[in-house]
């Protein structure tokens, strides 16, 4: 291996076509996850993401068994679960939290049992859960690209609606917007982002890519658009660096990418200006200090 400052170190892996495709994939996935993830974080929908991720798992297995398109199967099942979520959450005596818990564990169990019935090995389960970015085909890449375009267009077109519904649902309703329509759109976007991510970081770790970059960005800035931009940058950075690390040291790429995003979040939590733990601590000390003197 050549030196850290030698450009060859970074260019040489690019000669491998699978590495080039992988880099493109993590970039696209980072963009779409950070974009949708920003709204997930702002609305506190982490658990909904968790539920949709499990639903996608069942959908992928079903599609795999029926020989259909994995992405299509995943999406159809995720939409079904999103709809059930709405119906169940409204039932008295259940509560949204429990409804989500029941639905996602049910769909995951279904996926596991079907995978069993199909007699595919443990390796398939591991691939679905942890992803394999270096196995991304050109076709997968095209599908991911399409997801990115659709999501970007949807967010740009509906930006102000998504923001109003997130910030002040009561006002949104008073302005005549149906919350179920806009929540539905967001759920579809989450499902799309998770679908795009499952090939690269895997179904289980996709949630991390949805949450960690957006949360980190939120700690670092107080404006919405810069927050989204920074989340995208962080997600793409984690993806690219994680992929290189995975290439050089032969560790699985999905966990490497997720650990990097997690490390970024940890750093921001500690050292972010104004919001960070260290910053708050210093300010508190200063306040105590000045109070002791006066």
């Amino acid at each position: 291996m050549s030196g850290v400052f030698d450009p060859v170190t970074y260019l040489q892996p690019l000669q491998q076509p699978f590495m080039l495709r992988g880099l493109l994939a993590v970039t696209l996935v980072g963009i779409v996850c950070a974009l949708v993830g920003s709204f997930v974080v702002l609305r506190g929908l982490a658990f909904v993401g968790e539920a949709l991720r499990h639903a996608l798992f069942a959908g992928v297995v079903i599609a795999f068994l029926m020989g259909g398109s994995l992405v299509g199967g995943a999406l159809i099942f995720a939409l079904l679960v999103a709809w059930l979520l709405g119906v169940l959450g409204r039932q008295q005596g259940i509560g949204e939290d429990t409804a989500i818990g029941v639905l996602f564990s049910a769909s995951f169990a279904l996926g596991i049992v079907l995978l069993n019935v199909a007699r595919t090995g443990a390796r398939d389960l591991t691939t679905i859960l942890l992803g394999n970015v270096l196995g991304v085909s050109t076709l997968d890449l095209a599908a991911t690209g399409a997801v990115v375009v659709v999501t970007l267009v949807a967010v740009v077109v509906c930006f102000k609606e998504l923001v109003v519904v997130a910030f002040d649902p009561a006002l949104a309703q008073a302005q005549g917007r149906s919350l179920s329509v806009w929540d539905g759109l967001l759920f579809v976007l989450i499902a799309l982002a998770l679908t795009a991510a499952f090939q690269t970081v895997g179904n289980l770790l996709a949630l991390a890519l949805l949450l960690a970059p957006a949360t980190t960005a939120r700690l670092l800035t107080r404006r919405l658009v810069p927050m989204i931009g920074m989340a995208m940058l962080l997600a793409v950075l984690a993806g690219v660096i994680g992929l290189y690390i995975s290439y050089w040291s032969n560790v699985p790429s999905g966990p490497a990418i997720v650990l990097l995003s997690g490390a970024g979040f940890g750093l921001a939590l500690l050292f972010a200006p104004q919001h960070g733990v260290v910053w708050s601590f210093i300010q508190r000390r200063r306040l105590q200090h000045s109070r002791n003197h006066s």
Partner: protein
Amino acid sequence: MPNLFELQTYLEPLSLRLVQRGLLAAIVVAIICGVMGTFVVVRGLAFLGDALGHAVFPGVVIAYLLNLNLLAGGLVAGLITALAISLVGRTGQVRESTAIGIFYTVAFAFGALLLSRSRSAPRALSELLIGNVLAVRPEDLQLTLLIGGVVLLLVWAFYKELVLVSFDPQQAAALGRNVPVLNGLLFTLLALTIVASLQTVGNVLVVALLVIPAATARLLVGPLPAVMGLAALLGSLCTFAGVYISYYADIASGGAIVLCACGVFFCVLIVRSARQRLHLGVAG
């Protein structure tokens, strides 16, 4: 296909030591899951339960690689994650649900990375993820019984404190109870339950055994002790059925148990809402 109406169908599996052990362990797990699951459902802790289920993973992997006790490793990892989540939640900068989502996925990624260094990775991973009732060894059964006993004993001893802190933390504080310590106790009990369940239902499905029987019981009865009892009973029945299905159809026991519990939940839900509609129709 076994004959459903013949006694032999039900007795045959029981003659195997393997099945006896597995069934006993699974039923102990179902009972403590029913009791702890009631707290999970009442307090809306489904996501935390799910996260702890995943977060025990790196601990189990480290214990596996170092040849230590797997369950002890899992317990330590689960408790560290729970502590980290509550600390981050307390800074007030990040929503608790977001913190849960980030911490457990990162913990899981860490575990997966460690495990990837080991040759037996995929098989060991899937065993932990989805469990296998028939792989319960005698010493595992002993440990499960021990954990089960400890959890039930602690719930019995601290029952009124746990209920108070779940229902009205402010009142608990006003009565001079240490709320963080009681919450810590609840989370520790939850982590213990999850660790005990690893072997039978696996760590991604344990949340199902926590949430589904308790949610079903809550639809049927009102008082908290009744919900706990019914949840434990329903969980045990589904476990029984699930183990038999898993034995005859040769599918993952965890998945079969959870799908049974789900079936019961949706039946109860449908019957209940049909009856409600009937009532409303009669009243209107």
